[in-house]
C-alpha cells in the first residue's frame, strides 16, 4: 500500500513486519521516532515484541545480545553518541555471531553539539564485524531493513547488520512508501548456537590465542560469504516485490570518464548533478555505495574518481576515499562535505566534478585543497 512516511517510520513499519521477539532501545535524536513508533505498536498490540526501555545504549545492545543468544530475533536503533556508547557491545555482538539488526540514524559527534547528518558515527564501527548498508530513500530504508534480517540470520552469515540512514535529510523527510506483505521472505530464525537448557554449554569463556585466531578468521570467512547471501537476498526481494538493489546504485556510469562516489542521500542528489554535467558535455556518472561492509568490488577501471566523504579520519583522510584508493590502487579527488549536516546541493556536487584535482583533498566550505 502506498503512503507518505518518514525514513524513521519506514524502518518502524519494517520492524512491525519482521516481528522481532525483543526490541531494546534508548531514544536519541534523530532516531527517536523509530523507537517511539515501535513502542506504540507494542502497547497497541500491533506488534507482539517484548520492548525493553533500557537506561542506556550500552544496555540496549547488551539486552539484544542476551536475547539473541537464546535464538530469537532482536532489533535496536540508535544514532551518533548512542552508537559509540554501544561500541564495546557491538564488538561482542559480532564476535558472539548474533544476527542482531540495528538501524543507525547517521548523525555527527560532539562537541560542538550537533544533531545533523554525518557518517563518521557508523564508520567508527567499521572494524567490529557488523555488515553495514547505507540507504538513500524512505522506500530503501524500509526494504533494506526487511532484507537485513534475512541476511543477518542466514546460516552462512550469522553476523549483525546495521542499516544506516542520514539524520534528518532521510530520517525526517516524507516520501512515498510502498509496504509489502513479506510472507515467508524472512524465514524463521534457527540460531545453531542458541542456548539450550537440555544441552548446557559455556559462552564467552577465556579463549586461547589459537582458538581465538580461528574464531576471528571465521568472522572474516562469513563476511566474505555474506557477499553471495546479500546478492541472493536482493535478487529474491526484486523477484517478489519488484524493487532491485545492488551493492552500489550506479547512474550513467557505463560510458563515464569520471565517476562521483558517495553514500546516503548525496548519492541520490548526485544523479541530478550528473544530468547537469552531461548537458555540459562532461561524461560523468554517479556510484552510490550501498554496502560498506562487506566492501564490494567496484568497477571503476579507466575512470577518474571523485569521492565525497561525509566523514573524516583525522590525521588520515576521508574514510570512503581511503577504502576506494586501497581497492582501486588509484588516486582520487577526495571531497569532504556535508559534515555536521552542512548543506550540499546538486550544484555543489556538480562543481566537485568540474573542479576536480586528482590526488588532492578538498574541504567544501573551507575552500582549500590540502
Amino acid at each position, binding site marked *: 500500500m*502506498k*503512503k507518505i512516511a518518514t525514513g524513521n517510520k519506514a524502518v518502524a513499519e519494517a520492524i512491525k513486519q519482521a516481528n522481532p521477539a525483543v526490541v531494546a532501545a534508548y531514544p536519541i535524536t534523530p532516531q527517536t521516532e523509530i523507537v517511539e513508533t515501535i513502542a506504540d505498536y507494542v502497547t497497541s498490540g500491533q506488534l507482539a515484541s517484548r520492548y525493553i526501555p533500557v537506561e542506556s545504549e550500552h544496555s540496549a545492545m547488551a539486552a539484544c545480545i542476551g536475547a539473541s543468544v537464546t535464538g530469537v530475533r532482536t532489533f535496536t536503533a540508535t544514532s551518533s553518541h548512542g552508537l559509540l556508547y554501544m561500541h564495546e557491545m557491538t564488538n561482542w555482538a559480532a564476535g558472539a555471531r548474533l544476527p542482531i539488526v540495528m538501524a543507525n540514524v547517521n548523525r555527527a559527534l560532539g562537541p560542538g553539539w550537533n*544533531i*545533523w547528518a554525518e557518517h563518521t558515527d557508523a564508520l567508527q564501527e567499521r572494524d567490529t564485524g557488523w555488515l553495514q548498508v547505507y540507504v538513500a530513500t524512505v522506500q530503501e530504508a524500509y526494504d533494506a531493513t526487511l532484507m537485513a534480517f534475512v541476511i543477518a540470520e542466514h546460516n552462512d552469515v550469522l553476523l549483525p547488520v546495521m542499516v544506516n540512514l542520514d539524520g534528518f*535529510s532521510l530520517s*525526517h523527510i*516524507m516520501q*512515498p512508501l510502498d509496504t509489502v506483505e513479506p510472507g515467508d521472505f524472512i524465514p524463521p530464525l534457527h540460531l545453531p548456537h542458541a542456548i539450550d537448557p537440555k544441552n548446557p554449554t559455556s559462552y564467552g569463556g577465556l579463549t586461547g590465542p589459537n582458538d581465538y585466531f580461528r574464531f576471528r578468521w571465521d568472522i572474516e570467512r562469513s563476511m566474505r560469504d555474506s557477499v553471495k547471501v546479500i546478492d541472493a537476498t536482493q535478487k529474491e526481494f526484486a523477484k517478489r516485490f519488484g524493487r532491485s538493489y545492488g551493492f552500489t546504485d550506479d547512474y550513467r556510469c557505463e560510458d563515464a570518464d569520471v565517476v562521483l562516489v558517495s553514500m546516503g542521500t548525496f548519492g541520490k542528489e548526485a*544523479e541530478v548533478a550528473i544530468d547537469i554535467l552531461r548537458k555540459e558535455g562532461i561524461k560523468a556518472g554517479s556510484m552510490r555505495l550501498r554496502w560498506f561492509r562487506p566492501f564490494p568490488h567496484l568497477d571503476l577501471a579507466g575512470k577518474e574518481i571523485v569521492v565525497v566523504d561525509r566523514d573524516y579520519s583525522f590525521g588520515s583522510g576521508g574514510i570512503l576515499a581511503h577504502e576506494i584508493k586501497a581497492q582501486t590502487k588509484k588516486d582520487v579527488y577526495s571531497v569532504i562535505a556535508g559534515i555536521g549536516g552542512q548543506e550540499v546541493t*546538486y550544484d555543489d556536487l556538480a562543481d566537485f566534478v568540474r573542479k576536480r584535482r586528482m590526488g588532492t583533498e578538498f574541504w567544501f566550505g573551507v575552500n582549500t585543497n590540502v
Partner: protein
Amino acid sequence: MFEIRIHSRGGQGGVTAARLLAMAALHDGKYATACPFYGAERRGAPVVSFVRIDDHPIKVYSQIRDPDLVVVLDASVMDTIDVLNGLKKGGNVLINSAHKQEFAGFVTRNVDLTGIALRENLVVAGSPILNTPVLGALAKMGICSAGSVKKAIREMFSDERNVKAAEAAYKELIA
C-alpha cells in the same frame, strides 16, 4: 518540479500541512516529498517546511532555494523573515490573512484561515488549526485536486470539521 516553502510558527501545523500536501499529491498520482527544516524548534518560533511535487521520482534532498510558491500561515513571521527570499519571478504567495496584500512582481492571494478555523471551532491548546484549511486553499490554486485533499485529511484526522474547514477555504479563496 513544483517547489513550495511553508512559513509558520512552531505548533501551528506547518509540518503537518506539508505532509498533507504530499499525501494529496500522491493521491493525484504524482511524486512528492515533504520535509521540515530542523533547527532549534520550539513553540512559537518561526519554522519552515518544504514540499516538492513532480511527475517523476524526486532525487533532491537539499533545501528549496527558489520556490514556485510561498505559503505564509502566520503573517507575523514577515516582521523578522523575508518570506519572498528566492521566490521565482512571478511566483505565487498565499497568506493567511483577512486582508488583501500585494508584493510587486509576485501573484499574492490571501484567505482568512484563522477565521475559518475559529468558525469551525478547530482549536487545539488555544491555537487555531491552520494545516487542514490551508489544503483547501491550495486545491483552489490547482496545486492538488480537491478530492485528494479530502482523502488526505480523512486519512490523518477523524474529525470531519477538518474537511469542512478545507471546503470553506476552497470557497473563500479568490483564485
